[in-house]
């Protein structure tokens, strides 16, 4: 992977209910790019926005958690980008789409329902 290629970030970050979490570890299996397990099996989640190309993996990890401890939470833009509020960290121009739309970068399958194939920029 080209390290200088910008990663498009979504508006979401991962949140975990630490009390509910019971160390099943499925999230780390399904989203190893962002979730590591500590020596007792509890998740260590990468801070920051979930990259757009990992959103589907994140949703799968969330859906498969036996105790439903994981979720995507909207990042409070006003706090992070008080001046621009654009939503892009790599491309700071005003955003023109929502997550439901097709982001301009990086390229991804045209249809969200036909997404089960390998994603174009899967890391790890």
């Amino acid at each position, binding site marked *: 992977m080209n390290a200088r290629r910008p990663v498009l970030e979504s508006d979401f970050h991962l949140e975990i*209910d*630490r*009390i*509910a*979490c*019971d*160390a099943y570890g499925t999230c780390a299996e399904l989203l190893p790019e962002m979730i590591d397990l*500590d020596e*007792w*099996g*509890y998740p*260590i989640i990468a801070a920051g926005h979930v990259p757009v190309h990992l959103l589907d993996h994140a949703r799968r990890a969330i859906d498969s958690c036996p105790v439903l401890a994981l979720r995507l939470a909207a990042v409070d833009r006003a706090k992070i980008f008080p001046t621009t509020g654009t939503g892009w960290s790599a491309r700071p121009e005003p955003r023109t789409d929502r997550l439901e739309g097709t982001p301009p970068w990086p390229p991804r399958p045209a249809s969200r329902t036909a997404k089960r194939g390998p994603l174009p920029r899967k890391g790890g």
Partner: protein
Amino acid sequence: MTARLLDGPPPGSGAETLREHRARLGDLPARADRVDLIQTLEASGLLGRGGAGFPVGRKWGSVAGRSGGHAVVLANGAEGEPMSLKDRVLMSTRPHLVIDGVELAAEAVGARRAVLYVGSEHREARAALDRAMRERASDRSRTMPRVSTSIVTPPVSYVAGEESAAVHFVNDGDPRPVTVPPRPFEKGVDGRPTLVQNVESLAHAALIARFGDAWYREAGRGETRGTSLVTISGTRSPGVLEIELGTTIGELAEWSGATGSYGGPVLLGGYFGTWVAGEDAWRMPLDPAELKRNGAAFGAGVVAFLGDDTCGVRATARIMDYMAGSSAAQCGPCVYGLRAIADATARVATGRPRGDDLVRVSGWSQTLSGRGACRMPDGTIGLLRSAMKVFADDFASHQHHRRCVATRAAVGSAS
């Protein structure tokens, strides 16, 4: 030393009565002068005194903004921090000042219910508040609207004073933190917006309501204005003092008779706090803003001096053990992580280290923070990191040479 909260009869003479309280401080201001209390508090710069130091005016404002007249005030006097005594001293000696603050808060945020949340071990404080409420119930000259107030006593516990735990206990009898959001100011006691405010903060508010923000700001030496209660230990005369914010650690050492040498290690803020040491630290003003810039925290105002011949590694290991034992046992990283840290630091402290104990402790101090529902792991790890900095040589000496720098003795045999 500037006495404001503790002005009046000396603390040893017990609780101030309603009559004494009125004679000394006068009535609360008339209703017309109370309408801008939230702005006055903002202007005063008063910071919360429960440990987190959140601006009081802003907190009241955010509850008032969503209260709809149905908010709840929870006066937090749990004081589960083992090194702090200041809340129980305040409640025991100035109960009416605390209740004045509760009533003012209830009016300002729009609350009809208030809870005095008093740690069950603080019996004297509870008795003083009980009596103060009875005095008020039979008082005809009151100018404040009535608030339905009850006393709730959580069990002895470090975490029971955490704000979501306090709300949880009042609602369900379970003094353990819950996952937030929603935070108590959004959805707290009875599902209503709840102002959880430390009792000392409320007492300050009762004085600011009477004398104004300009008066409050007259005290203080640096950026953060006003006075604060502090709990001093490890000196010839330990106990609770009221100081001007900005007083230096060195001055406190002098006033209270610290026995160790100048610049010795000091624990600031309690078990969630930080160790500091050195002559620079002793010249450092106890001012929340200044301390924050220096990587320390004022916390709930604990200043504990460690004597010259006391082992900082052992002291830290004991704190880690206490914290591991105080975990509410809900979140894995807290349950397993704090126990692992406590066991490893105990091995290092007592001269039975396993090969990589120090490295592992250092690793955990990086990976555990932010991984609990409450700040239990974060607070504990903050203290641990400061200990590994301040007592770096001592930790290394214990690990590699099994010798204690402070006591100049081999560790492992003596306890």
